[in-house]
């Protein structure tokens, strides 16, 4: 059962580039399992995380076809985290920095996400119990 905490995360890293994006999703998953309200402001490369055109592929080095490789697609992880949050009485809210989306052309994002601005991050920070910025390097 949730104790109704609201936590905001600001992320910067694109998928598939370093460990930070995975650790960020681990943290968001923990908060979702607790039924918290979790806000994610995706800045710069992080707008690629909920991009629904990510696609699986085979891995010839490991001798796997695409099904066997079952390559992670971060947008699917995020989609599942959102369902987990809801199932536990919480919510995952996700804003992609709109200008960052435009630069990268990653307009096809999970339906529950939306475009926004730094003003949205500020509003969330003011109304959350806490905010964690996970920067890129």
């Amino acid at each position, binding site marked *: 059962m949730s104790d109704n905490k609201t936590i905001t995360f*600001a992320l*910067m890293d694109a998928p598939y580039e370093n460990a930070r994006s995975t650790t960020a999703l681990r943290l968001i998953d923990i908060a979702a399992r607790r039924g918290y309200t979790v806000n994610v402001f995706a*800045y*710069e490369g992080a707008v690629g995380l909920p991009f629904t055109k990510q696609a699986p592929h085979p891995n010839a080095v490991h001798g796997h076809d695409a099904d066997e490789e079952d390559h992670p697609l971060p947008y699917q992880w995020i989609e599942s985290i959102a369902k987990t949050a809801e199932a536990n009485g919480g919510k995952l809210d996700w804003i992609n920095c709109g200008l960052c989306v435009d630069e990268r052309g990653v307009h096809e994002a999970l339906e529950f996400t939306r475009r926004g*601005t*730094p*003003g949205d*991050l*500020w*509003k969330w*920070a*003011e109304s959350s119990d*806490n*905010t964690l*910025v996970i*920067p*890129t*390097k």
Partner: protein
Amino acid sequence: MALKILNIVETAYRATLEEQDDTILWISAAMKGAGADIDVLLRGNAVNYGVKGQDASGLRFGDKTQTHPPRLDDDVRRLIDKGVKVYVVADDVAERGLERTDLVEGLERVSRAGIAPLCADYDQIWHW
């Protein structure tokens, strides 16, 4: 009481040419414009953002010329003019062979040892 944030910028010249901005100085300015009570601390290589006369002009790829290269010293001045306190870590400045006169006016100097007590003045510290 309104939330007070310290934005720490440490990594420097990260995609500044493609973005024509430092993305953290930019978001700090945007959030200030949206009403945030926000100050900035430049540390590590980011102290170089305070150096006068940075010039990234002249990039050309094929027949595409960059028309608005970043002017990071101007961006720092602009933050200061908007009422954002911009701190610079004096030890990091000295280690990089910089003199006070190399830097734009209006920066507030803090020693490395002074960062810990400075944190007490802010509700949250966002390290970018």
